[in-house]
């Protein structure tokens, strides 16, 4: 009977494609929007992800994220270094600045000062050039998103001179970095040079990055640092989560994406529900005949379930493939750089599709089960 059910469904091509489209569109909308949402809020932790070597971030107790920080006095570095279990500790500066490009454009940038000696604080990989270029006077490294924003038409940024807060800076390398939440241009330079580029208050050091000694858990180290220095210390994972939480708590992004995902669900219910109902209505005589002949309600349920299952399987597959193609198609776009589909997202869409099909299938099935076999004689 399942074969008959599938043939009944696929035989009505218009409705079959309508159902598949409904599920595929719904899956695409839900999967794609959830994927963008997850990746976007993870950008709140990009500053942490870009410094993989730091086990612990130490900051003023009011600092919340890499971008929302309150500078500390330089003595904080010595305090952290004095804590047992700290293998190494380096200064880290993050501040905003303005850049006037050679063609006269103004761009707001983030300046990141990394440790002069070890260069800890730089992203792990370089897209162009090497990290050694920071030894050259006035040199800065730009992130690859900044390259596309500041230099159009594929123009190479290497050797370009910038007016960075009224001082000369020369781009000598391009870092392969995870873009920030706002995709702001980021310039990396040595800590000592960053202090000159970003004038400010007496205290300038945003963070102290620390590594744990062998056998010391980062969590234990954060506790020790907090107890002994009075500063706030977070492990890499904790601080990354702080960045994500900050975006969730302080922007309308979750609500907006949530609404879109809900719309995707509603659109799915509407299209699939309507088409499924039409399909059942068109076939109600056949279902009635089957019931009169002696097909049990259990088998009828199985038939409708197999029809819903087939539509769901194909539609869901197409929707997920559509999302993969979308992410792949836009992977070269800096806005979508590093985007991936977390494994939880297709599972959530699958659950949503299952809900849509359960709901619409139940509505459709109600009509079939309500149909009296005797109706076929009327």
């Amino acid at each position, binding site marked *: 009977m399942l074969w008959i059910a599938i043939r009944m469904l696929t035989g009505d091509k218009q409705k079959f494609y309508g159902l598949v489209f409904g599920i595929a569109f719904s899956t695409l909308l839900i999967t794609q929007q959830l994927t963008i949402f997850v990746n976007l809020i993870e950008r709140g932790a990009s500053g942490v992800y870009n410094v993989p070597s730091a086990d612990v971030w130490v900051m003023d107790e009011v600092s919340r994220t890499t971008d929302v920080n309150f500078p500390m006095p330089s003595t904080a570095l010595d305090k952290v270094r004095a804590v047992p279990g700290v293998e190494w500790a380096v200064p880290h500066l993050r501040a905003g600045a303005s850049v006037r490009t050679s063609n006269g454009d103004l761009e707001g940038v983030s300046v990141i000062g990394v440790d002069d000696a070890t260069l800890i604080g730089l992203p792990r990989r370089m897209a162009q050039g090497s990290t050694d270029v920071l030894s050259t006077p006035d040199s800065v490294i730009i992130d690859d998103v900044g390259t596309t924003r500041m230099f159009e038409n594929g123009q190479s940024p290497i050797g370009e001179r910038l007016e960075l807060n009224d001082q000369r800076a020369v781009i000598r390398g391009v870092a392969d970095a995870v873009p920030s939440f706002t995709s702001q241009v980021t310039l990396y330079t040595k800590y000592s040079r960053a202090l000159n580029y970003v004038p400010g208050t007496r205290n300038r050091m945003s963070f102290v990055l620390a590594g744990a000694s062998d056998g010391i858990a980062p969590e234990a180290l954060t506790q020790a640092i907090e107890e002994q220095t009075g500063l706030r210390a977070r492990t890499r994972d904790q601080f990354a989560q702080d960045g994500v939480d900050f975006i969730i708590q302080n922007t309308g992004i979750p609500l907006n994406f949530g609404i879109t995902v809900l719309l995707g669900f509603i659109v799915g219910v509407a299209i699939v529900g309507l088409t499924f109902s039409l399909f059942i209505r068109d076939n109600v005589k056949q279902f009635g*005949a089957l019931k009169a002949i002696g097909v049990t309600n259990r088998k009828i349920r199985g038939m409708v379930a197999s029809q819903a299952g087939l539509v769901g399987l194909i539609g869901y597959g197409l929707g997920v493939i559509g999302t993969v193609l979308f992410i792949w198609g836009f992977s070269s776009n800096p806005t979508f750089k590093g985007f991936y589909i977390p494994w939880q997202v297709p599972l959530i869409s699958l659950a949503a599709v299952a809900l849509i099909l359960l709901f619409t299938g139940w509505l459709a099935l109600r009509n079939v089960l309500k149909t009296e076999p*005797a109706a076929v*004689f009327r």
Partner: protein
Amino acid sequence: MTADPHPAPSQNDAAIATRGVTRDFKAGQRNITVLHGIDLDIRAGELTYLVGESGSGKTTLISIMCGILWPTEGKVEVFGTDIYALSDTELVEFRLQNIGFIFQQYNLIPSIDAASNAAVPLIAQGMPRLEARERAIAMMEKLNIGDQIDKLPSQLSGGQQQRVAIARALVHEPRLVVCDEPTAALDAGSGRRVMDLLRQVAVAEDRACIIVTHDNRVFDLADRILVLEDGEITHDGTEMPEDH
């Protein structure tokens, strides 16, 4: 001593026995009685016509006799089984094993070919599809539509579709065949051919065949004619009464 108005069904020769079958329908606040205590014995081996005007209750009666509409009162035995004493599942299974249906509008499944349509009762019984199809093809050959097995219903003429419907009704060798207005959409010649065909293939010693019709062009082909008027049997004979 008065006679029992609803005597027990005859156990020897009646394929279908109805006793005191009454059926009410609700129409808003009103209760309409469509059948008034029908007592009837249908014998196997006969082509029985159930004749009546629209609204006389013949569709209701035939629905009750084949186990798809519950009577308000009364009892129906089909080949000795009190079908409304069965559970829902048992009744559905009983229909599947014992009754073949030919619907006025055929109700073929439009997206499967003729042979698969004819094989539906066997597939529903759980027979593997290909085996069921083979049996259906054999039945279709008997009905002279063996060359139409791969065609979809939409590719068949009305007469061919009806033969597919007949094949579907007979493929599982039911003991009761119920046929609703088989000639309603056919001209006189085609109507007679269909009735002849039904007589050849559906009527058998161990099978009852009931046809609901009001087509007076084919009345002469019946073995027995029952006339239903306002929910009561008013005539039971081998020919139509003269006043009809």
